[in-house]
Every structure is written in structure tokens, then in C-alpha cells.
């Protein structure tokens, strides 16, 4: 099978990116609702890619993703909210200094959100990564819950259960997809570097990796912190998309972690393109299934809507995938021009006999 040259790959990629650009530039053809969904897909994509870096590529099972997303969301929102808005919202307990007198732009706020989340990933990873598989999962879950409960109770910092309202809707299609591009480039470059090989080795057999000279702990921390950064970024983008934040379990708790887990399992644990595919799948399916939650008119019959149906079907799909199709769409490999060429060449070849 012919191997595509570097030039061909480059040209195809540029054409693809131009295509994506035009798609995004005209996204509002689809109407306000769908262009919002297209933005959401990019946000989900960042969440999924950052999560698959840890669970998929490095092979350590974390359940704390929602915690870092929440940290990024709250940090950036507290930085971009206007001072008047903060005074209005924080009526039980005023917001602490210096946050009550600062307001900065979206981009720096997102970066800071990511950095703060990365910092917490460092704090949490340091003790937790000493633990093995199951225990690590539970520890990260516990930490994520601790974060959520602290957010819920710190009225002076996060406005507690009242949440934050009136967050400016800064997240446009461009910001979201721009950050997604950055995430893909950074984590993709990491995966296809010497560090990527080290992480994959750790994911397969940590003891063998150690004996090959790899400082397993340090590399796991590295992956965990990088993942935390991008999770924080996705949180910031999410906050400025949904414009309100509240620390209820359903929005920023384990449920969110589970959503992202669905994305990466279906897309393929350890694949960046798989994560994006999973994000797209999740966005569409959850929107489409939401249809079942309100009444549907079907040839004159009204099928009553059933709230919660989308989650039910998603979790059923998830379980079926785990039992019958564990590798997901992409498995550990990536979508590449070469792989698509091989795939189509094979099909066409077969048909021509």
C-alpha cells in the first residue's frame, strides 16, 4: 500500500483546516441553537482530550476531571465578572479581596483558570499517584467531591449554592475551536514524542517501564497536571458558554466526569481523534435523545416525553460498548490521512476483485 508523502499529508491537512474554517465561519447558517452546539462540541472535545491523556494514554484511571473543570470555570468567571455584577450576586457574603475589585479579559482569565486547575492537579496528584488503580480512582473521586463541596460552602469565594450568574457569553465558535486546536496540537505533539512513548509504556506495564529507567511517578504527574490545565481551560470556556455556574452535583459533579468518560470510551481510550469523535457523538446523541424528553408527534399520535430518557439510553449504550466493543471507535490509534487512504483503498480494492 502506497505510503503518502509528507507533502501530500501537509496539503490534505491544510485543505481540511480551511474547510473547517469555512464551516465555522458560516456556522450560524444552522441557526443560533446549532451554532451553540457546534461551540459546545469543541468544549467537550477539550474535556475529552484532556481526560484521555490521563485515562487513555497514561493508563491511570482518574475520576476527578469534573473537579478541575469546576476550578477552571469558577476561577475564570470570578476574574471576568464585572465588579458591579459581583456586588449584586454576592449578597450573603461579599466576595473576598482581591477578586472583588478585579476584572480582566477572557483570554488571560482562561489561562489563569487553566493554571489554577493545573496547580490543584499537582496538589491532588502528588499524594494520589502513590496509589494503585482502584484506589487512585476513588481518591480522585473523593478529591473532586471535596472541591465541589468546598465550592458549595465558600460563600465568600464562590457565592456557595447561589452560584454565579451573568457571566459574559465570551465563548464564541472561534474561541472554542481555537482552544481545541491548541489542545490537539499540544497533546498530540506530546503523544507523538519520546514522552508519549514513555506514557504509553507506563500505561501498559509500569514495572517494566520503571526498570527501563522511566520515572513513572514523575511522568504520571506530568500527564495529570497537563490534563488539569486543559480541563481548567475547558471549564473556563464552558462557564462563558453557559453563563451561569452552580456547584450542584448534576452540573459540576461526578455526572460531568461520567459524561466525559462516555466520550472517551466510545471514541477509544487513548486516541485524540477518538476523543473528538466521542465528543461529537455525545453532543449529538444527547441533543437528539433530549427529543424524547418532550412530547413527540408521530403520525398524529403524541408519544409522551420522558424526562431523563437521554441519560438512560446513553448509559445503556455505554454499558453495551464496554461489554462488546471495549476498544471504541478508534481504539488507541489516531485518524490520519494514511489510515483513511488505506481503509478506502482496501474497500475499493475488494470490490474490484
Amino acid at each position, binding site marked *: 500500500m502506497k505510503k503518502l508523502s509528507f507533502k501530500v499529508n501537509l496539503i490534505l491537512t491544510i485543505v481540511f483546516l480551511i474547510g473547517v474554517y469555512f464551516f465555522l465561519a458560516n456556522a450560524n447558517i444552522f441557526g443560533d441553537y446549532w451554532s451553540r452546539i457546534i461551540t459546545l462540541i469543541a468544549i467537550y472535545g477539550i474535556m475529552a482530550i484532556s481526560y484521555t491523556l490521563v485515562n487513555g494514554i497514561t493508563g491511570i484511571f482518574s475520576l476527578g476531571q469534573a473537579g478541575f473543570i469546576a476550578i477552571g470555570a469558577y476561577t475564570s468567571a470570578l476574574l471576568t465578572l464585572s465588579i458591579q455584577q459581583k456586588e449584586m450576586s454576592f449578597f450573603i457574603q461579599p466576595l473576598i479581596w482581591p477578586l472583588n475589585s478585579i476584572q480582566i479579559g477572557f483570554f488571560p482569565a482562561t489561562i489563569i483558570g487553566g493554571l489554577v486547575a493545573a496547580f490543584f492537579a499537582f496538589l491532588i496528584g502528588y499524594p494520589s499517584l502513590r*496509589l494503585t488503580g482502584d*484506589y487512585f480512582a476513588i481518591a480522585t473521586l*473523593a478529591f473532586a*467531591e471535596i472541591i465541589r463541596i468546598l465550592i458549595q*460552602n465558600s460563600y465568600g469565594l464562590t457565592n456557595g449554592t447561589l452560584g454565579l450568574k451573568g457571566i459574559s457569553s465570551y465563548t464564541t465558535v472561534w474561541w472554542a475551536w481555537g482552544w481545541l486546536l491548541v489542545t490537539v496540537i499540544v497533546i498530540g505533539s506530546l503523544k507523538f514524542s519520546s514522552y508519549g512513548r514513555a506514557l504509553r509504556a507506563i500505561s501498559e506495564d509500569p514495572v517494566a517501564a520503571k526498570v527501563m529507567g522511566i520515572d513513572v511517578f514523575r511522568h504520571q504527574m506530568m500527564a495529570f497536571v497537563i490534563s488539569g490545565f486543559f480541563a481548567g481551560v475547558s471549564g473556563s470556556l464552558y462557564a462563558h458558554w453557559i453563563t451561569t455556574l452552580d456547584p450542584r*452535583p448534576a452540573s459540576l459533579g461526578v455526572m460531568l466526569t461520567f459524561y466525559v468518560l462516555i466520550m472517551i470510551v466510545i471514541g477509544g481510550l487513548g486516541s485524540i481523534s477518538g476523543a473528538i469523535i466521542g465528543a461529537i457523538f455525545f453532543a449529538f446523541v444527547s441533543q437528539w435523545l433530549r427529543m424524547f424528553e418532550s412530547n413527540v408527534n408521530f403520525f398524529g399520535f403524541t408519544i409522551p416525553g420522558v424526562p431523563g430518557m437521554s*441519560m*438512560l439510553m446513553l*448509559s445503556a449504550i*455505554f454499558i453495551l460498548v464496554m461489554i462488546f466493543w471495549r476498544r471504541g471507535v478508534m481504539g488507541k490509534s489516531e485518524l490520519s490521512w494514511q489510515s483513511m487512504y488505506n481503509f478506502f483503498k482496501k474497500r475499493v480494492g475488494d470490490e474490484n476483485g
Partner: protein
Amino acid sequence: MDANLNSFVQNFFNSLSLGGLYALIAVGYTMVYGILRLINFAHGDIFMMGTYFAFYAITLFLLPWWLGFLVAICITGLLGYSIEKIAYRPLRNAPRISSLITAIGVSFFLESFAVVVFGGIPKSFNVYPKFFSEMLVMGKIRIPILTFITIIVTAFLFLFLWVLLYKTKTGLAMRAIAVDIPTTSLMGANVNNVISITFIVGSSFAAVAGILWAMKYPQVQPYMGFTPGLKAFIAAVIGGIGSIQGAIVGGFLLGFLEIMIVGFFPGLAGYRDVFAYVTLVIILMFRPTGIFKVYSEQKV
């Protein structure tokens, strides 16, 4: 002074009953982990389903309360059995992470099932005789009767468990499988049956805990199993995951911790759940094998 002693006694009995509930749920976690090395994330939701089964048995099928409770416990046992057979057994030879991920999926499936079928709005669990909500009054001390009932039921069930494990062949097989599956099956034990029984027993205990819980905090909603389930798991880890004595001790310990801390520092009530999580983190840092160490280093 007097008021403090009263509230202390009240808190003490409250801790016993809450601890008992945690212990009942924790035992299910620890038994499954001991045998399959699997954290059954769905266990807390089995607890929730048991409560709903009881609710509907009485309100929809109009069974007398005691029969409704009994039927609910049996059906929950069956539910545990089915989950193991359908979702966990196919993955028994897959990497452990896969079973863990699937368990999370089952957990969310049960929760969304409850939302769809039972409705997301919390329901009031007023399906039992008034007697259970009464208080026992001794001077200035008022203790709910339910507390005593919980303690008695819990003790009885643990006695039953002890008899099962140490006085029956099935129990012997359960203990053997917790140590070594291949050898035990070579010795003639039907591994699948024993695993099924473990799930049935664990789930039934969870159902009992659910019913008692719903009588104590009389509200049922689809996500009611998440926090108690997580805390019960933490209790199992504190006591030493894989050890049944550990689960029981851990459960009571956690119950005491929770009630006593809020008792002495009422301002911390909002952080009530955090104590369990923080305790978990501390235990995992310094003694991950828990109080009654079961698993030592793994050989390379």
C-alpha cells in the same frame, strides 16, 4: 451541662444507627471487592433501588408494610444477581479497569432508570406504621425508636452473616474464593454460584439499609444512593477493604465521626460529607490497607 450530656447521649445513639447503616452497605462493597477485586460503584444505587422497590410494593401493589419490605429485599437481591450476570461476568477476564468503568456505567444506568421510571421528584416515604417514627423519651433525652430498631436489625443481620460465613459450606467457599479463585474452583466449588450468592447477600443488605435509611430521612429520590454509597465504600476502605469485620468497624467509625463532629461543631454542618472524604484521603496516604489489613504487597 445537662443539655450537653443529653445531646451527647442522643448523638451517641444516632451515631450507632447511622454507623449501622453505613456498615450494612459497606459489607456489600467489601464482599464483592474481596472476591472480584471490583469496586461495585453501582452498590449505592442498588441501595436506592431497594428503597424504591419497598415504596412501590406498598403504595402500588398495596402489600402490607412488612410484606412489602420483604419482597423489596428479595427483588433487590435478584437485581444484584442480574447485574453481576449481565454486566460484570462477561468482563471477568478483561483488565480490571474495564470492570470498574462498567460498574460506573451501571451506576448511572440505575440512576437514570430511576429518574425515568420512578420520576426525579423526591417522594415521601410514609409507608410504614406510625410506631416507627415515635420517640423514646427518658427524662430530657429523646431518642427515635427507629434508632434502636436499626441497631437491632443490623446486629441481627451481622449475626446471620457470621453464621453464613463460618458455619456453612457456602460461607466457606466464599471465604476461600476471596483468597484464591482458581484453586477454590479446582476444589469443587461452583465459583459462579458463590459469586452470585455474594451479590445477592450484599444487595439484600443494601436494601435493608435503604429501607431503614428512608424511614430515618423519609425521602426517596434517584440520586439518594450516591453519597451514602460513597461513604460506605470509604468505611470499607478504612476498615480494610476485603475484610468484613473491617467494613463493620469502618461503618460505625464513620457514623460516629460524622455525627460527633457536627454535634460538637454545628457550624460545620455543611461540610458533613467532607469528613468522610478527607478521612479517606488520609487513610489512603498512610495506611491504604486499612485497619484490618487483608491485602499485602503484590508479587512482581
